[in-house]
């Protein structure tokens, strides 16, 4: 089997397991490249449908291009879009470093949404190659009542038998792209012709490699104006994808603490 087919088959299997075993289920849709790939994979898994709500936890600080994309593709893809707000920055623990504090708004917004809709499963587009803490994740990853991730005591996961039994009050984060790399994502977007936000393409010598909030995400120097260019650029770089995400770098364990608290 070709590599992309293998990755796709595994992700489809994961999505189908989640849909069969966990109810109610929702997926996080940030309009970024990874979550667009998940929407696409869901349509493959469910033959043209996305049979669960697509949740956007809106910090209100995304780029205009992203809001435009949301409006257009929610309709074109027939998504059941659910938008959730985030609390104002003043409501977040002031002892956190500034970027982490900003990111924590999203964690709290997500918690509120989970509580409101009683979601038992949340599909998120994280990948192991993004960050060393994410590399330790499970495909089906249980979260405590408060959204807490107990990274020191994760359940065993092997032979594609996932954690689908859990006590009331817990929920499961499902990670269908965990085994993909950034380069895989772009190869797949190219092959499948998946629409993406234009911010990924270079303008005036800059482009976004990863899309977060406007105030804590910075573009990289690049002239990659097409998907082919991006693939070529990534194949020769060793800089990590999240280098442009400020909150990862404020402390040695900044990201671990964010994730333990329920961040994606």
């Amino acid at each position, binding site marked *: *089997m*070709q*590599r992309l*087919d*293998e990755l*796709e*088959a*595994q992700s*489809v*299997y994961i999505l*189908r*397991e989640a*849909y*069969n075993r966990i109810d109610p289920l929702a997926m996080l849709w940030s309009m970024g490249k990874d979550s667009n790939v998940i929407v696409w994979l869901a*349509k*493959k*898994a*469910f*033959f*043209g*449908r996305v*049979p669960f709500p697509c949740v956007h936890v809106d910090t209100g600080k995304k780029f205009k291009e992203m809001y435009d994309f949301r409006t257009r593709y929610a309709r074109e893809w027939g998504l059941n879009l659910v938008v959730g707000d985030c609390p104002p920055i003043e409501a977040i623990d002031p002892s956190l470093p500034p970027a982490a504090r900003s990111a924590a708004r999203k964690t709290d917004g997500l918690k509120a949404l989970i509580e409101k809709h009683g979601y038992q499963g949340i599909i998120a587009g994280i990948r*192991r*190659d993004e960050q*060393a*803490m994410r*590399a*330790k994740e*499970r495909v089906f990853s249980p979260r405590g009542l408060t959204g807490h991730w107990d*990274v*020191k005591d*994760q*359940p*065993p*996961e*092997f*032979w594609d*038998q996932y*954690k689908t*039994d*859990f*006590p009331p009050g817990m929920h499961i984060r499902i990670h269908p792209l965990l*085994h993909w*790399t950034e*380069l*895989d994502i772009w*190869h797949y977007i190219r092959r*499948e012709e998946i629409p993406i936000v234009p911010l990924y393409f270079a303008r005036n010598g800059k482009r976004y490699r990863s899309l977060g909030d406007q105030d804590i995400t910075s573009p990289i120097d690049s002239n990659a104006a097409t998907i082919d260019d991006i*693939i*070529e650029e990534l*194949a*020769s770089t*060793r*800089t*990590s994808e999240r*280098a442009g995400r400020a909150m990862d770098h404020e402390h*040695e*364990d900044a990201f*671990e603490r964010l994730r333990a608290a329920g961040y994606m």
Partner: protein
Amino acid sequence: MAQASGGLLKIVVVGHVDHGKSTLIGRLLYDTGSLPPGKMEEIKAMSERRGMALEWSFLLDAMQAERDQNVTIDTTQIWFRTATRDIVIIDAPGHREFLKNMVSGAAAADGALLVVDAREGVREQTRRHGYLLHLLGIRQLAVVINKMDLVGHSRERFAEVENEITRYLGEIGVTPAYVIPISARDGDNVATAASSMPWYQGPTIVAALERFQALTVPVEGPLRLPIQDVYRFDARRIFAGRIESGILRVGDKLLFSPSGRSARVKTIEAWHAPMPVEVRAGQSVGFTLDEQIFVERGEIASHEDRPPMLTTVFRSNLFWLGAEPMEPGKVYKLKLGTREAPVIVQAIERIVDTDTLERRKGERVERNAVAEVVLRARDGKPLALDEYRSIARTGRFVLIDGYDTVAGGVISMEGYPDQRQALTVRSSNLFAVEHRVPRDVREKRNGHRGAVLWLTGLSGAGKSTLAMGLEQVLFQRGFHVYVLDGDNVRAGLNTNLSFSPTDRAENIRRVGEAAALFADAGFICITAFISPYQADRDRARAAAGTSFHEIYVQASLSTCETRDPKGLYKRARAGEIADFTGIDAPYEAPTAPEMVVDTNTLDIAPCLEQLADYVERNLAGAGSPMPPAARVRDKESTAPKR
């Protein structure tokens, strides 16, 4: 931009705690130029902050707790690229406390590096990990003897450790492709050949990795497609699942197990792609059928000529991760493919000591232990499965206790028959012609009820003697009675059957059906067969319904062996008879028999008395013949509970 075509190669690094697994991977990333800029500086700063020399393992050990205690807690995966290929390296923890995480990492791998500290040599987790790799089905293995700098790069010490580990692996049937001396800290023999060990001529770690093969999914094998879900989003009814083995084509006749239903593939569905006419192992697919049949998640689709086995009991080799020990009689949830079913631990046959490879008896399986265990479907419903050695993906399972995964195991059917034929034979398309003489009328005239008295027990327990004795007693008291035993049945009805597990099961199935007909005819039919499998007896019970009485003729193996009336035990012990019940084939004692007669302690006469008494009470009542009305009441008040 070259992306490796073909499968991803995944390599897990395992071994005893602190033998240098994470260090090796860190060094591998560094020496192959795979680290992002600034990463080394980050690691240096982290090491200095903790007052340590440069700790390569910090590249992998991302958790604060891991760095602070200098131990890997959870498995991680990292991508890197050699000159010729992309590889995913899986780091696994070596501490026994985190074995569940080691298994989570290792189970996904195509190959493994087993790391051994040159100074410490082979330790407990070295062996356990080696054994588990074997159990997990990982066949490609290289041994890495690390920290050669601490033993003066000694060729003799290397040979000693190499000897020790290859001897152990040899005993479990594993031959490492390479044994490589390295110093992870110094990078010797990691990416470049070391001048410190000129006596070593073999490949470096990188060269060895490049020679590993990515595993392919088995396209050649028989079709296995566990049904994951059934979608009815629109007019189509789509069956979804991943092909675990073989090939599926439009027009194929599919058999679903265990239900036994079948239909033809009408279409193979797809979105945003042309509809395929053929799909293969590894693909997640959806298809429709030409007939509306009821199929649900958990069934396995196959072709009719090579179906999976059906059974209510199987043998397994498993590793136990649960905090609470596994014990006989406990019930767990089995997950096999997409099927979930309750199973009961029927027997713990052996505990495997992964240190010495000794197999000993044991009452319970403790955490992190390996054992051979017999599991039985708790609800009596058959399971569709394969033997691990023939189709791995439908021959392995996990067990759930409460909310937690507590075990993983692989299936062997040694000594147990495939029950498919026996289970499906009753579903054929016969329609019954009504008798003009109803059963209760026959029973009224006979003065007693028709019944099957099913005697089961070891060879030499006394079944035949009791059966013949009871037949005589009952006949004299006016009962219509007849004995089926091996002699009269094997001579005619079953003359075409051998003594293989499958034919034995068929033998018992026919006896069960014949006995049920006798009961229907108003007779008391006594059967005298070892009938060692509960599943077979349950089927005989199903054939006769409420007329069935399971009677356990109890005698210990040693008692029977001492009696040995036909000299069979002696011959079995001498290896002249294979698959002899109690010696090298299992006997499953009844769990809820209607009656037990103990020939260990009682002579034949009192046993016969007990049996006759049982018949009087349950089939005729005291002082037969009885008036019909009274007998009906008696039926309700004293019929055995089951």
